[in-house]
C-alpha cells in the first residue's frame, strides 16, 4: 500500500465483517424461501397446509427483508444522506403503486366493465 493509499485507508470504515454477516443472512433467507416453496408443494410434510395458504405472504415478507438488507447495507443507504434515501424511497413507492394499480385494474376489469357498461353503452 503506498502513502496515498494509507492516507485514504483511514477515511473509509472497515465493514467487511458486517458485509459477510449480511451475506450469510441473505443466504439463509433464500434457503427459507426455497424451503417454504418445497414444503408447500409436498403433501404430508410439516407446515404443508399452512404454507399452501400463506406461501405468497411468506415469500413477500422474506424477499422484502432481503431487498431492504441489500439496499441499506450493500448499497450504503443506511449511511447515505436523506436525498439519496428520498430518491430511492420515492422510486420504490411509485414502483409499488404501479404494480398494485395495474393488478387492481386487471383483476377488477370485469367488475368495472359491468359497472360502467350500462352507463356508456359499451359492454
Amino acid at each position, binding site marked *: 500500500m*503506498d502513502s496515498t*493509499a494509507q492516507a485514504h*485507508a483511514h477515511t473509509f470504515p472497515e465493514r467487511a465483517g458486517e458485509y459477510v454477516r449480511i451475506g450469510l443472512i441473505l*443466504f439463509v433467507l433464500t434457503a427459507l424461501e426455497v424451503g417454504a416453496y418445497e414444503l408447500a408443494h409436498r403433501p404430508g410434510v410439516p407446515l404443508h397446509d399452512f404454507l399452501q395458504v400463506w406461501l405468497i405472504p411468506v415469500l413477500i415478507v422474506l*424477499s422484502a427483508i432481503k*431487498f431492504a438488507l*441489500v439496499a441499506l447495507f450493500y448499497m450504503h443507504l443506511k449511511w447515505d444522506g436523506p436525498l439519496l434515501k428520498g430518491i430511492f424511497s420515492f*422510486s420504490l413507492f411509485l*414502483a409499488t403503486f*404501479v404494480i398494485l394499480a395495474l393488478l387492481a385494474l386487471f383483476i377488477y376489469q370485469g367488475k368495472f366493465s359491468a359497472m360502467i357498461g350500462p352507463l356508456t353503452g359499451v359492454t
Partner: protein
Amino acid sequence: MDAHALHPATSTGIPNRKLAIWTFIGSECLFFASLISVYLVYRGKSLVGPYPAEIFEIPLVTVGTALLLFSSLFVVLALNGCEQGNRKKFLGWLAMTILCGIFFIGMQVYEFTHFYHEGLTMQKNLFGASFFTLTGFHGTHVTIGVIWLISIFIEGVRGHVPPAKALNFEMSALYWHFVDVVWIVIFPVVYLMNK
C-alpha cells in the same frame, strides 16, 4: 472526512455522478415495476402450455440466485478494498464478482435454451411472452453489469483505480446491487409463486 470530501464540492454535498446513478436506479425501478406488473397480470392466464410448473427447474435457478447474492457481497468487499487502497483485495473480490455474473448469465442461457426445446417461445403463450421479456431484460442488465465490472477490473489491473477514484467503481457496484435487488423480487414472483 468522508469519501465525498475527495470529490469537487456540489450544492447537494453529494458527487454529481453518484446522484446521477441513483436517479438512474430510481428510473429503473419503474421500468422493472412495469415488467413485473405485466407478468403478474398475465399470471395463470395462458390458454396453452407449456405452463410454469411444468418446465421450471427450481434447483438450477436457486443456484443462480445464490451466485447473484454472493456476487453482491463480493462487489461490496471489492469496493471496501478499493477504498482502503488494498489492490489485492479489490481485484480478487472483483474477479469473483465477475465470475459469479458470468455463471448467472450462463444459467440463464441454459434455461432459455431448455425452455425453447420444451416448446416455450415468446409467441407460444402469455407466460412465454411475459417471462422472456422480464427475465430477458434482467439478463441484459446483468450482461451490461458484467461488461462494466470487467472494464473496471482492467482499469484496476493497470493501476488506474486508486482510492481517490473509488467513486468510479462505486457507481458500477451500485448498479450491480440494483441488478441483484431486482432478482430478489423476480425470483419469488416468477419462480416460487408459479401456477
